[in-house]
């Protein structure tokens, strides 16, 4: 059993929103069993931005799918707001790695954003209003009539984020959301997510293989590694609320943290 590194002291006063204990996941069974996650613990406090960083293939997507209720872990518990959850939950919204395919091409962007609200039973006028508000929040004001395939990858990603925001969940789960856009778009989207977190106070849990991205965005970086994967380090970044693509990344603590994570990951 690997105990998680305790680094929560600074955040002790915030309230625990999501609690994961002993999560174990494998694909296949018997001799073909492929263990991906082993005894993984995770605490997410309200209003916190957590990055989970680990190399490709370590099991980040598997972890996020377990958290979002799309996969059933072989062992362990997930609690949200004190209640154990089993399956998709209204307090959790997801921005998928495959974001462009997760938008329905037969719906306009407005309809895409409003669709989960229809599932919640919201009336049409409210749905449209909420969808437009959230499209505006991600910088797509007035673009609701366009179809996703009329938009660039970066804009499609904004739509996927707007959809998750509109769902009004307590926690936003994001799977490598910026892995397939160009560098400039990626910086814009990173800053957008930071802005949304400040504006709406939404709690975000993002997985990425990119150490710089993980550090730049997060209040707390959780490093997962090994096979099967488990939490090997937790770093509280301490950069404060304001981030800047140049200044934050030039902060000496940024370099130190990056070296620490790299070192930790290269041990395997």
């Amino acid at each position, binding site marked *: 059993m690997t105990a998680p590194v305790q680094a929560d002291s600074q955040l002790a006063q915030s309230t625990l929103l999501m609690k994961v204990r002993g999560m174990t996941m494998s694909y296949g069974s018997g001799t073909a069993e492929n263990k991906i996650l082993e005894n993984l613990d995770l605490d997410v406090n309200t209003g916190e931005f957590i990055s989970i960083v680990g190399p490709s293939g370590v099991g980040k997507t598997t972890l996020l799918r377990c958290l979002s*209720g799309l996969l059933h872990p072989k062992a362990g518990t997930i609690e949200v707001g004190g209640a154990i959850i089993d399956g998709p939950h209204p307090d959790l919204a997801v921005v998928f790695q495959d974001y462009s395919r997760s938008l*329905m091409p037969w*719906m306009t962007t407005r309809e895409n954003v409003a669709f*989960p609200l229809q*599932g919640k039973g919201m009336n049409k006028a409210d749905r449209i209003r909420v969808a437009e508000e959230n499209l505006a929040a991600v910088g797509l004001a007035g673009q609701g009539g366009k*179809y996703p395939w009329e938009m660039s990858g970066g804009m499609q990603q904004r739509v996927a984020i707007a959809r998750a925001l509109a769902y009004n969940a307590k926690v936003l789960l994001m799977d490598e959301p910026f892995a397939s856009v160009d560098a400039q778009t990626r910086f814009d989207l990173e800053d957008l997510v930071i802005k949304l977190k400040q504006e709406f106070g939404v709690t975000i849990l993002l997985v990425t293989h990119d150490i710089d991205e993980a550090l730049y965005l997060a209040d707390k970086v959780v490093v997962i590694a090994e096979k099967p994967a488990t939490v090997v380090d937790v770093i509280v970044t301490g950069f404060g609320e304001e981030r800047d693509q140049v200044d934050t990344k030039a902060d000496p603590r940024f370099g130190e943290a990056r070296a620490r994570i790299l070192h930790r990951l290269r041990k395997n």
Partner: protein
Amino acid sequence: MKETTTSPRLLLAQRVAAILILLGIWWLVIASGAVPSMLPGVSQILAAIGKAFVSAAFWGALGKTLLAALSGWAIAAVVGVVAGLVIGSINFLDRSTSILVDFGRSFPVLALMPVVIMLLGSNARMEIVVVALSCLWPVLVQTVYGARRQEAAVSDTVAVFRIPPLLRFRRVLLPSALPFIATGVRISASVALLIAVGVEVISQAPGIGRQITLMQQEQRWDMAFAYLFFTGMVGWAMAAVLQRFENRLLIWKRQEND
């Protein structure tokens, strides 16, 4: 490459030329006397088409045939789409019914006609039932196929955002299977017309098929051919209208494929 750069005008000219050449060959064959003399020539048929065009009996018969064909087709489309979406989206149903579906699609419904006539009589209702049974399979098979091919990211989205089953059916399953459904519905539209005429020929229920048989009995081959020609034109027009409608409805699909 070449086809895509052809202008619409040139395309039309090519198509008209193809028809003219075909008619020319027909005329040559008749003129050479290589076929039985009962086969009418091009000019006779043209005259007969003109005559049919102003005949109330013809329009009445065409109306009856179309009504039966369209009713049977519409029933088959609704039943086939709903059943196909349910079967295609539920794994165990899909597996357990695949033999039935394969059997049904290759079953010659026209061979069942004597039984159906015995049960329902030689009337429009019987005709609609036979048309519907024949049209069901293309729609069902295509819809099952379309419903099976759910994009994984779309299924995940539906699950995560807890979309209720009926809403998912209407707003996700149906549109994503629509390109396949459209093909099935278009195929079955021409099947509907063929079967309707065939049923009328066999059962003597009123309609174009019955008229064709009557004309043959009266040795009016030119009129029989004129009626056949009209039926072909109607089938072609239906397919063209559907294709148009399909292109408009599936604008997102075309964009995706570009």
